[in-house]
């Protein structure tokens, strides 16, 4: 019987996860692993992910790669998987606590946010003190990626975030407001419009991911503010990098879903063969798959790559 593994992503509607799936499938084929893939129907679909983990246990898989759609709610079921001798690796999103999984391969999401925050502050220079910031977050459930990026961005920008796990408890007057996007373009557009209504002078826009950024840009364009507003985002998908090139997005933090996937498959393979579990990065409670700031307007002191370079590395 060949070695089985599972990949469980949040949804099938986000290019990021689709890419991850492609990467994992390719790596699995190479490694001689039979990979089954699963996904929730929407971001936050806890039950489908639980059922998927259970099916993986039932089918005798050696390892599970999962991007938990709720970092806490899925802990019990993956604990059960581990008790059954299955290696569980979190991708992209950490569990809470992170050591609920055997390992995590993820972007340092706080760092990803911090980078774009620092970049935005540096780009504005002295004007950063008078910035008007819009924060376009994921959804009402505040999962870990959501607050890590949001709070990382604010930290990088120089805002006091108070509780770093709570979105929206800040009282810095430069923050115009938060709104949710569901990580989709139509959500991004409506959220941007709403915040513009609260203050038309917004000049810095943080977005949870690039689909949301694309929607936000449409709203700014429609309001005649295509120029002069900094949009920053996270992902580094090829469409997003092209948006950087086109000046739609000022800077984005690139993630490496293919790396997460291939690392994950590798880990399962070596676990199955040697029983060895992967180790975390130094000083972190996860394995950092790296993050790169992509911008065509680099600033002093923050290493970054240009969109042209980034097009070589991007995914999707």
């Amino acid at each position, binding site marked *: 019987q060949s070695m089985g593994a599972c990949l469980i992503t949040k949804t099938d509607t986000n290019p990021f*996860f689709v890419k991850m799936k492609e990467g994992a499938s390719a790596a699995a084929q190479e490694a001689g692993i039979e990979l089954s893939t699963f996904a929730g129907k*929407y971001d936050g679909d806890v039950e489908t992910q639980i059922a998927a983990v259970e099916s993986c246990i039932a089918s005798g898989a050696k390892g599970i790669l999962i991007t938990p759609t709720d970092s806490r709610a899925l802990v019990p079921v993956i604990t059960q998987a581990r008790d059954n001798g299955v290696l569980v690796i979190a991708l992209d999103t950490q569990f809470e606590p992170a050591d609920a999984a055997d390992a995590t391969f993820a972007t340092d999401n706080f760092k990803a946010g911090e980078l774009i925050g620092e970049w935005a502050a540096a780009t504005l220079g002295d004007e950063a003190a008078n910035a008007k910031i819009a924060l376009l977050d994921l959804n009402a459930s505040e999962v870990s990626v959501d607050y890590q990026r949001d709070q990382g961005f604010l930290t990088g920008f120089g805002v006091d975030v108070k509780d770093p796990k709570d979105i929206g408890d800040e009282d810095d007057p430069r923050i115009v407001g938060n709104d949710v996007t569901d990580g989709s*373009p*139509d959500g991004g557009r409506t959220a941007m*419009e709403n915040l513009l209504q609260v203050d038309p002078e917004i000049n810095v826009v943080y977005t949870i991911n690039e689909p949301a950024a694309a929607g936000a840009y449409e709203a700014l364009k429609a309001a005649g503010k295509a120029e002069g507003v900094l949009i920053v985002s996270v992902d580094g998908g090829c469409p997003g990098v092209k948006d950087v090139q086109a000046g739609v997005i000022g800077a984005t933090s690139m993630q490496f879903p293919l790396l997460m996937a291939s690392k994950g498959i590798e880990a399962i393979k070596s676990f199955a063969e040697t029983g060895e579990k992967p180790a975390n990065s130094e000083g972190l409670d996860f394995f950092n798959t790296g993050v790169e700031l992509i911008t065509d307007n680099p600033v002093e002191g923050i290493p970054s790559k240009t969109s042209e370079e980034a097009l070589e590395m991007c995914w999707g």
Partner: protein
Amino acid sequence: MSDTPGAARKGQEYEQTLDRSDKNVAAFQRQHSPIEKAQHVLHDNPTLVPVIVLILSLLIFWAIAGGRFFSAFNLSLIMQQVSIIGMLAAAQSLIIITAGIDLSVAAIMVLMSVIMGNLAVFMGIPSVIAILVGFVGGAAAGLFNGLLITKVRLPPFITTLGTWSIYYALLLWLSGAQSIRGTDIDTNAPFLKFFGNTIKMGGANVTYGSLLMIVVFLVLWYMLNKTAWGRHVYAVGDDKEAADLSGIRTDRILISVYMVAGFVCAVAAWASIGRVGSISPQSFYEGNLQSITAVVIGGISLFGGRGSIMGALFGALIVGVFQSGLRMAGVDVLWQVFAIGWLIIIAVAIDQWIRRVSA
């Protein structure tokens, strides 16, 4: 009269006095309280209810959120924001008037926008043709719903619960779960974004999409109220069996209604590309329930046969005004959800209260 053959030719004896019977019909007069009078006026013009609710909510949020809320700019923005759900609500109204319900409208719309995008952006087919293919596709999806409902005789709720899954799976498959980028559309098929163009008037920023929504409503209103087809649609929703017996081809009417609704969804698909600026399989996941919400707040009866399609337009606008107003007043998203829940209940309760008077 005695019971012998051929003796019964002049009616019963006891009926002979009928010629002298009173020819008047009963007429009763009585005083009405002002509330009852208002109730009657509204009863005779039921579309007034959502209009009044709309005006009231505008005034309330003006008071709460101030001039920024009541600006031409913001009002035109609300129009923009409701335009897509508004068009879905128009399609939904048609179906609800026939006593049906369509849980698949949003899936049809997103599916068609993906098809238009794939054809025009990736396959290089001229936008106009891509759009036409989308229109045909929308009508075909409606036709499929209609056939299941009329020929297989499945209840509309069940049919569209099923086809919603089917259309949703198809759109995931066709899109490969990828969004089509706004800039790619701009370069390869800018015409897909046509309805994103705006007309600036004073402070207002009216998109073509907002105007399209109004046109869609006016056209459907005309069809429903000024043509024989429209009378038949109402008759089918009112009492299908009676409509059948009085010589309406009810199956044909129902199929045509689902096709028109599917077509309207495809029109909304085109407009949504202009609105969102890109094409994403994850958009409008809640569009079905949102369109139903607009319809019921607009006072169209879920039992069919009653209500004006214009109500759905006002219903969609009321929801838009609430969302915008609450946001401006700095209310959390979660309390917006809460408020919409109460809005549905209160709006329909008022409507019920008014309908309780007989004409």
